């Protein structure tokens, strides 16, 4: 390929230099900030000032950091869910809906059965029922993918819209089990006290937005990372991801692998929704959920290159964008929160472009005018 009188050659790398594993994400974030800065400047906001405010609000103050960790908690879960499916080349984008269902399932357990159990049993119960609900929401796309080969992309996405309407039905459209019976105001019924955790105060007397569920999410990521390294199941999925034909030759059951990976992915997103129930919400709360953490999970997973440990870092980074963005919205020079979403999309686009440099060695040589 010849561009501007220079020959550009691409050679596939056999191994990736360690520095690039670090540099590509860093540069992706940098260039995304530049793109976001262009739009900020175009709408009359100071890019540098906005970013400094954003960082200041999200990562420097005590409340900023605890808010960020609190928001990162469900985001780690949806990030893990996306990473788990995407690394098998299964592009489920239904984390949003599965998270809603996790909240609904968790709230059901918290209201219906948690009452008669101590906290030590009630909280895990809520999380597990949430996981099951999330898995149930992806069961149909998983079955279709494994049995008929139906693309999971559109089927999981369509169910997000169904889940959103289901959530609205339970709180705004009906007066059933999930509605608070003590008021006519449309809000969720609170779960039993034993099903809730109190926020972490980090050795102060302040009330934060970080819940112990953050550590559950981190442990989940570490355990998943370790399990997929050492277990037979982890090996089989890795082989299948690389080459489905090899996996089939070796006698691996592709229908089982595909459907189980999707179900686990759904369960992970469901846990994220249930963590709202044991944590900040304590009920079905549509307002808390609709900030697009399901879709952000996909960005987190891609930026982490589907590495479960890196998901934690990426999730905290992205949650910071959101909390910082929230603070910007209410400052005296309000910047729409959507700038956080713009940055997410841009980071992902640049990270994708960066893959080229990770996979290929690029050499540029000057060519003589005659041959160009």
């Amino acid at each position, binding site marked *: 390929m010849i561009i501007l009188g220079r020959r550009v050659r691409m050679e596939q790398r056999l191994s990736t230099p360690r520095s690039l594993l670090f540099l590509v994400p860093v540069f992706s974030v940098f260039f995304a900030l530049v793109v976001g800065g262009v*739009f900020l400047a175009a*709408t009359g906001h100071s890019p540098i000032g906005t970013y400094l405010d954003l960082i200041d609000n999200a990562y420097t103050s005590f409340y900023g950091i605890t808010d960020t960790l609190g928001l990162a908690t469900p985001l780690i879960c949806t990030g893990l869910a996306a990473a788990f499916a*995407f690394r098998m080349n299964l*592009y489920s*984008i239904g984390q949003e809906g599965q998270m809603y269902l996790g909240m609904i399932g968790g709230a059901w357990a918290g209201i219906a059965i948690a009452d008669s159990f101590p906290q030590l049993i009630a909280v895990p119960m809520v999380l597990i029922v949430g996981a099951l609900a999330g898995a149930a929401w992806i069961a149909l796309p998983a079955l*279709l993918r494994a049995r*008929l*080969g*139906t*693309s999971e*992309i*559109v*089927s999981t*996405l*369509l*169910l997000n*819209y*169904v889940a959103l*309407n*289901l959530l*609205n*039905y339970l709180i*705004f*459209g*009906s007066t059933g089990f999930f509605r608070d019976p003590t008021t006519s105001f449309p809000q969720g019924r609170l779960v039993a006290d034993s099903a809730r955790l109190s926020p972490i105060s980090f050795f102060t007397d302040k009330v934060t937005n970080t819940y112990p569920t953050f550590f559950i999410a981190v442990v989940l990521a570490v355990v998943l990372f370790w399990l997929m390294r050492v277990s037979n199941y982890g090996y089989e999925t890795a082989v299948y991801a690389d080459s489905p034909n090899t996996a089939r030759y070796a006698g691996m059951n592709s229908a089982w692998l595909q459907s189980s990976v999707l179900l686990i992915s759904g369960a992970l997103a469901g846990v994220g929704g249930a963590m709202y129930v044991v944590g900040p919400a304590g009920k079905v709360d549509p307002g808390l959920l609709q900030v697009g953490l399901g*879709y*952000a999970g*996909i*960005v987190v997973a*891609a930026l982490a290159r589907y590495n479960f440990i890196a998901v934690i870092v990426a999730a905290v980074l992205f949650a910071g964008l959101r909390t910082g963005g929230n603070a910007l919205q209410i400052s005296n020079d309000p910047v*729409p929160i*959507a*700038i*956080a*979403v*713009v*940055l*997410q*999309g*841009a980071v*992902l*686009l640049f990270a*994708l*472009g960066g*893959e*080229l440099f990770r996979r290929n060695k690029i050499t540029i040589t000057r060519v003589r005018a005659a041959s160009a």
Partner: protein
Amino acid sequence: MNSNIWLLTFADAISIATTLILASLGAILTERSGVINLGVEGMLLMGAVTGFLVADSSGSLWLALFVAVLVGVVLSSVHAALTVGLRANQIVSGLAMVIFATGLSQFIGKPIEGDPLPVLIRPIDFGALSDIPFFGPVVFGHDVFTYLTWVLVAAASFYMHRTRPGLLLRATGDAPATVDAQGGSVARIRWAHTVVGGALMTFAGAWYMFARSAAWNQSATTNGIGWIALALVVFASWRPLRAIGGAVLFGFSLQVPFTLQAEQIRVLPPTIVAMFPYLITLAVLVVLSTPRARRLLGAPKMLGQPFVRDER
């Protein structure tokens, strides 16, 4: 309840179908070349919001539509650069496009949220023709772009199945190595069709804004129509003419909740009825996935696969 309501719903369905047809036609052209662009939903939103912004400041519908098309060209060029040029994963690139475009449309659309539309696309006045029972509202009740869309579909079908570049397009999606061996440029064909497809998608968004919406309201403006258009591509088995029937069907399912609400018919709660378009689309996808149906469909064989000459 009288039959007239359902006739009007059907006429509305044909009107909504215009967006679905344009968007899925864009996706068909893109996918036939072997590139998946999942960014449809984001492209619709960007087309809608930039159209609104330009019309708001200039007062010109034509300029608004033109800029919307330009935005589609730019956005789909990014997708083409990543997937055709840099051989990035098409699925992830498309999703990134949805997220980026959704965020950007909300960001730049913040100041105009809820404002009345500056210009409108109105149906053509056919005079007495519109009063003919049934045919009046169904055939003679639309705006100029709806009729142009029908013509465009016929033209695209002719292009794809009856011309040499169309043959090359289909070959690029099915057997890029063959096209390359014959001296065709796989990259150029894929770029061109991704960009034209993207332009159709943002145009569809701008049309939807001016012809079918009451105001710009963030992501609720398109409310998943882009994803339905993607399902429609499968329904149409990658053939433009077949997209029309599917678009009217999906358009009908999108319109029924509004009709029920307007007529205050409460068979089911509105939130439940609002699930139907997505459930119907899902059901159609399932039926189309049966082995029997798949044999008849024929997706482009190398859809989603980057073409690398050295690895041939």
